[in-house]
């Protein structure tokens, strides 16, 4: 007869039984998690909830003044400047979605490079610009757009095309386009690495089969590679949508929403209303809540439309 060897100082556990040590284990785990949980609640959730709460108040940021119900939202819907900013945001959103294409194309080309060394070299070249702080890049572009000293007008001068010199960020008709042109050729390093990771995770037999079937490079891209990176595309798409709808860093640094509101976006408008002379934090909170709703709706709709395979 075999008996299981029972080690000293161990206990056997029956299903469903409680013991003091499992309770202690749970508590220990909780203590490890607690700092992160507290910080998340304090610095992520509390500001969000506070913003939602204050969206229904006239609040100057110091003392909660007056409950106004939906007055802030009514004012937003009647605010001409807010709708100008929404229009600009819509243009930027569509452009940013279209400008995802160069990154995808670059990834597919990079993925198809036969030489492992070349692949590595190009990945490195993609990543090196990441070490430059974004603010520095923006200020460089601002300087390049300077009508008097900037690179673009000086280049046009140098090639004898000075009649095409522009005011760039100083022209209300060109300022938004100038901001969109920033970052040319629009290859997003992080997105590129995500796509590459997706493509490299695919079973190699698919490419062999495609080769045997005589599939051309463009057909391969459209029918095989693109569908296979739909999941990664969705991930990047969510990032682009939320970043575009709520973001305003570029506009704040380069144009402050001008000239004449031509580059104003809702996020920046919210910032101006909160931190401008009249400190309308309540109104700004209402704009923020509205932006959250818009971003959520568009993201959910987009995810439903794009089904991963």
């Amino acid at each position, binding site marked *: 007869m075999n008996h299981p060897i029972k080690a000293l100082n161990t206990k056997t556990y029956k299903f469903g039984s409680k013991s003091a040590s499992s309770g*202690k284990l749970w508590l*220990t785990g909780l*203590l*490890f998690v*607690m*700092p992160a949980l*507290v*910080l998340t609640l304090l610095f992520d959730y509390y500001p969000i909830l506070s913003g939602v709460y204050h969206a229904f108040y006239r609040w*100057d*940021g*110091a*003392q909660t*003044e*007056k409950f106004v119900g939906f007055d802030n939202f009514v004012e937003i819907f009647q605010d001409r*400047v807010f709708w100008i900013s929404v229009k600009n945001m819509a243009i930027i959103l569509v452009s940013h979605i279209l400008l995802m294409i160069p990154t995808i194309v670059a990834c597919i080309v990079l993925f198809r490079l036969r030489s492992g060394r070349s692949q590595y070299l190009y990945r490195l070249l993609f990543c090196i610009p990441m070490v430059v702080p974004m603010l520095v890049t923006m200020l460089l572009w601002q300087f390049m*757009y*300077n*009508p*008097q*000293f900037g690179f673009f007008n000086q280049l046009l001068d140098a090639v004898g095309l000075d009649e095409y010199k522009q*005011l*760039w*960020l*100083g*022209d*209300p008709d060109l*300022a938004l386009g100038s901001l969109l042109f920033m970052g040319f050729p629009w290859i997003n390093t992080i997105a590129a690495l995500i796509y590459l990771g997706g493509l490299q995770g695919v079973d190699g037999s698919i490419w062999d089969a495609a080769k045997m079937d005589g599939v051309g490079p463009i057909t391969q891209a459209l029918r095989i590679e693109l569908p296979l990176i739909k999941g990664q595309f969705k991930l990047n798409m969510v990032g682009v949508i939320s970043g575009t709808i709520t973001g305003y860093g570029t506009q*704040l*640094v380069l*144009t*402050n*929403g*001008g*000239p*004449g*509101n031509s580059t*104003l976006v809702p996020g920046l408008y919210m910032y*101006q*209303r909160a*931190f*401008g*002379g*009249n*400190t309308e934090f309540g109104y700004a909170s209402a704009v923020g809540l509205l932006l959250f709703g818009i971003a959520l709706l568009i993201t959910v709709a987009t995810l439903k439309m794009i089904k991963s395979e």
Partner: protein
Amino acid sequence: MKKIRLAHTARWLPPLLLSVAIAATGCSRQNEPAAGGSTPAATNLDDSKSSIPADKTFHIKLMDWQGQNPPYQAAYDQAINDYMKLHPNVKIEHIFQPNSNNGYDKLLDTQFVSHTAPDAMQLSGDMIKKYTNQGYIMALDSYYNQPSAYAEGKNWIDTFVGGASGFQNAKTGNKFGAISFVPVDGGPGLNSNRPFFYNMDLLKQAGVTKLPETWHEFMEVCQKLKDAGITPIAADNNRWLLWIHAWTGNQFGENYINGFFDSKYAGNSDLIETKKAIAVLTDKVGTKDPIMNAQAELLKQFSQYWQDGWAGANEQAAQQLFLYQKAAFLLDGNWNYGFYKENIKDFEWGVTPFPVITEQSSPYAEGAMPKGLDMLSVYGWGLNKDLEKDPDKLKVVVDIFQYMTSKEAQDKFVDTAVVNSPVVGVHVPEVLIPFMESDKNKLQNPAGNLLFATANSPTFLAAAQQFYTGKIDQEEFMSLIGQDAKKTVEKKAKDQLDEKIGIPATIAQVEKDIADLKAENGPQPLIDAQQKTFEALKLQLEMYKTYAEPVLK
């Protein structure tokens, strides 16, 4: 067993230590008692009446944006170091926080909420109004009405130019009617003139032999420059627009607003802001107003001389344009005089007063500049209200500012900073003359620029950028500004009439303060000051009820 117990303990220790560490980050060390306390020997200034405790060490934090202006930074550092020599038990940390892109007040917004703001901080007029109304900086009336330790027994407020009346703008600028800042750099008369820095070489190149004194002459000079292929003005899309509107607008409409109200409200400087707000609310000053339109026309004509692409340029870009000799004129303040003196080596330059707008340029012009001699600008240092929880520290901070605004300290300060002083009897450096008030400064209550100044700043700037780049016409410009200005004053009027948050609540508070002061046998000057505030608030409420309430209904 012991090993197991230790192992159990060891498992608990890391999370426990981590939790304690996080809890401990909220604590900060307060003042520590010094080991031994000796009163330092006085230097030039007699601080024998200085009442700061000598048996404690104090760590004081002062924050400003003067790091951007080396002469000002040097002047403040000098004053701070001199004070610390006088009081070795006081350690002052002079913190520089840049003011560009609104970084300064954004930081203060979060610091005040978290009660981590410095003990005192430099503030602009808008910031003083904002933080006073929000209750983050102290009302200093009681300190002003007591003797300064550095002024031979005089009340602190009497050491400033204009005395108590010099602070009139300060009191009307917030809802409590309180003086909530200490002016240290920049006295009255300095901001009465915002001159143009000019490039003499470019002017000579264009054949300009005489500097313009009137607006008409200035336009002629700009045209000559333009004809010579030289950009006349280095402009930007923010500060330039605010300044050019202010400095032209303040030459229109002397006493214009008074004409809309009962004569009993005339001549009362406490009611100026109320009258302006009500004038806009009741359409006395609206989009068709001839004075507002005259100013807009004048500036539209002027805008042809601003550099191409100015609407996309910030202050630094405009400054660069001037420094690289691409533009002949740049509007800037005395605080940058030292910077230009240090950095401009390759061309001849100078400073010329802002031109006076005469009837030759506009039939509505007054032919004079605003007078400011007896009024201090609302600009200076605010004291953190949290100091009230530490009376000893508060004494020290007040003492620091009484020292910095003593005549002796200011005489050194103005030479280093190249600024004039808010303190009586301090000399004016010679290079400052073009920045100072002259016999052309005569206007007491100009009303030009009223509509533009009442609108929200972002709205005004956006509309101005569109108007001066030709995207919209004057009618649309005035309409945008007028609508926003009216909306702003409507909100303000409703707030002012509100029983809980408006003037009635402030009146009740001031009444209570007066009663408390009387009950405690408080100083009579303070009671008088509060009484004056009370009377002014009553008049303001009366005006809102008489003129604004009917419109709001």
